[in-house]
């Protein structure tokens, strides 16, 4: 499949180092921690890029090491997005900041109706950060990129003095090619449209929270961090009833549904009984007094789909690894005055789902 990326000839100097271009990482001098010089643009920077970055992200655009990556994309309709990643802890059950940085940006492209193609990767690293941790993160980035068929085509590394950053911050920007004939927008949403989610909610947020200082508890909790591009593309190619998609990251499902409601001017009703939640996640949230609807997800997306296409969408999701627990959780309703999101609870009651405050605080009372 034509990837559309520039296939320039590698520069002559690179031919001498071709024996290093496997995935084996080679260090010319052993450093176990990042030094300021690694971001200084000189010898150490060069070594870092050639021995740790290039071997992991083999693609022609990157190996040029030009100031900008030249891309030939198959369409003029592109999606472009960026996100920064500052998650703590850096490593958690189900992933790490690297995997998150790739999947998070891919997912933003995917739910916009595009096929993710290329990512830019920028690292800001605190002086003293362990090389071993950096390598682990780079390995995760590389693996996630390969699994999701995107190339890291350009990047940047800066180092800052100890204390000026909390270990490592990552920014990724991504480009995706708009899928032909796909038009996702809030304006298309109509009364009667159904809402589907591809799986359980709250897994990522509760996993992170469970490993924070002061709250730390061991758990079977696992982040759902994953790139959903393959599934969204399959949905969009095989049905034309998908009107809108969004990934419920920070602020959780509550935030996303409120955004959709406000943006479309229509009310939404969901059913608690149809929302897939892992009992371990629910209990962990109960223990801290959190509402699972407000907790972040990193491998999930909400689809608003026409009634006629609902069943087909559901089946496509359930046939994919990332959609086995997909469920129709609600629908778009008539609105009398202000659009609201309402939930029908397990006992048959009703209440409003508000936009979350933005910070869930653990409580004992």
């Amino acid at each position, binding site marked *: 499949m034509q990837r559309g990326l520039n296939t320039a000839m590698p520069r002559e100097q690179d031919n001498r180092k071709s024996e290093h271009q496997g995935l084996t990482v080679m260090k010319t001098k052993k450093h176990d921690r990042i030094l300021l010089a690694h971001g200084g643009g000189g010898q150490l920077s060069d070594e870092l890029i050639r021995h740790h970055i290039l071997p992991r992200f083999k693609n022609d655009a990157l190996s040029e090491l030009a100031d900008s990556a030249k891309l030939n994309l198959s369409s003029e309709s592109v999606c472009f997005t960026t996100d920064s990643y500052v998650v703590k802890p850096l490593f958690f059950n189900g992933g790490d900041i690297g995997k998150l940085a790739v999947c998070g940006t891919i997912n933003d492209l995917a739910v916009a109706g595009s096929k993710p193609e290329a990512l830019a990767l920028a690292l800001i690293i605190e002086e003293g950060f362990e090389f071993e941790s950096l390598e682990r993160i780079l390995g995760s980035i590389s693996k996630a990129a390969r699994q999701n068929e995107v190339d890291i085509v350009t990047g940047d590394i800066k180092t800052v003095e100890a204390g000026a950053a909390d270990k490592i911050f990552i920014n990724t920007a991504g480009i995706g090619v708009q899928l032909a004939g796909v038009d996702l927008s809030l304006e298309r949403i109509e009364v009667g449209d159904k809402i589907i989610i591809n799986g359980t909610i709250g897994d990522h947020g509760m996993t992170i929270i469970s490993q924070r200082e*002061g709250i730390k508890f061991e758990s079977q909790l696992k982040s759902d961090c994953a790139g959903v591009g393959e599934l969204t593309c399959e949905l969009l190619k095989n049905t034309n009833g998908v009107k809108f998609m969004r990934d419920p990251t920070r602020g959780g499902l509550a935030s996303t549904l409120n955004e959709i409601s406000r943006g479309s001017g229509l009310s939404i009703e969901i059913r608690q009984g149809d929302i897939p939640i892992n009992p371990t996640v629910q209990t962990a949230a109960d223990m801290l007094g959190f509402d699972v609807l407000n907790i972040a997800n990193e491998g999930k997306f909400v689809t608003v789909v026409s009634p006629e296409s609902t069943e087909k969408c559901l089946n496509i999701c359930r046939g994919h690894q990332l959609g086995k627990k997909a469920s129709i959780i609600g629908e778009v309703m008539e609105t009398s005055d202000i659009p609201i999101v309402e*939930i029908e609870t397990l006992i048959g009651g*009703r*209440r409003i789902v*508000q936009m979350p*405050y933005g910070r869930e*605080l653990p*409580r004992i*009372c």
Partner: protein
Amino acid sequence: MLEKIYKAQSLMNSACESLGRQINIMEVCGTHTVSIFRSGIRSTLPKGVKLLSGPGCPVCVTDQGYIDTVLALAERSDCLIATYGDMIRVPGSSGSLETKQSSANIKIVLSSEDALQLAKDNPEKTIVFVAVGFETTAPATAVAVQEAAAKSIDNFCVLSGHKLVVPAMRALLSGKNDKIDAFLCPGHVSVIIGFGAFAEIVEGFGRPCVVAGFEPMQIIEGLGEICRQLAKGFAELKSIYTAVVTEEGNTTAQKIIAECFEPADGYWRGLGKIEKSTLKLKDKYSRFDALNRFNITETPGKEIKGCRCGEVLCGLIEPPECKLFAKSCRPDSAVGPCMVSSEGACAAWFKYGDAKRTG
């Protein structure tokens, strides 16, 4: 499950018919308030049954003066404030713990043991444990104080905001709001004090008291039982939270509370001064009392103009009746604690809304 709901609803309907007027049931527990709203129970109740939120949100009833004391201590560079998350956004007269710039010396803890550990890990600081909560939480504070004494962890102290539920219920019925027909009593406070503790409300004031847990079905069945009694015209003490509540309660916990604390008069937001309604550390533990250590006299705070948290807490008005509700008083810019506390009636009303009744 549906049958149990229908049964409870029919008991409620019978009570409404039989009394021929609105029934006011007070749920004396912030956790009940949140559970009731989150599970949409209000929308399933018949129109004649009104649920009042009572002074059972420990943060909401915490007097302004206490909050200002915590804020003042948070400013000190030799102090580290250890607090449950509940207190973080409660507004004092000038900001909240959340808005304090150096959040480095404010730590959220999930247990009094964590606060004690902070003291061990930071010998150069004085750890002030913001001890709010009712009888459910007081034993945890007592255990920490006993451990601090036994192990000479002298840089640990407690600012006790612990309150007692029954004196508040008594005060309500004796003056503030005599329109309360019955109480849905707090399940976890009862684990500690025993459901027998509410006997004086039943006998002294003739109000049914039913102890229920926090699962929606517990609350619905509890309300059904209350209405069953009201319809028949009697008042009884009953617990349906049989999984964990006994008549005498947790006597070990009661003894530990008694060993460390003594009841003292205290100020409650909305209820004013109530006799023997708060817990104060006994003299033998006075060196762990933050009031003593920092020479603080607690003065009741001034009520904020326009804030009607007090009336909300007594069940006299519903949050939307306050002029500030949802206008200048919202969760992101709360005027009073009822809006910011996760259990506050105003926050619950704001978040969960007055959704359409299905009944």
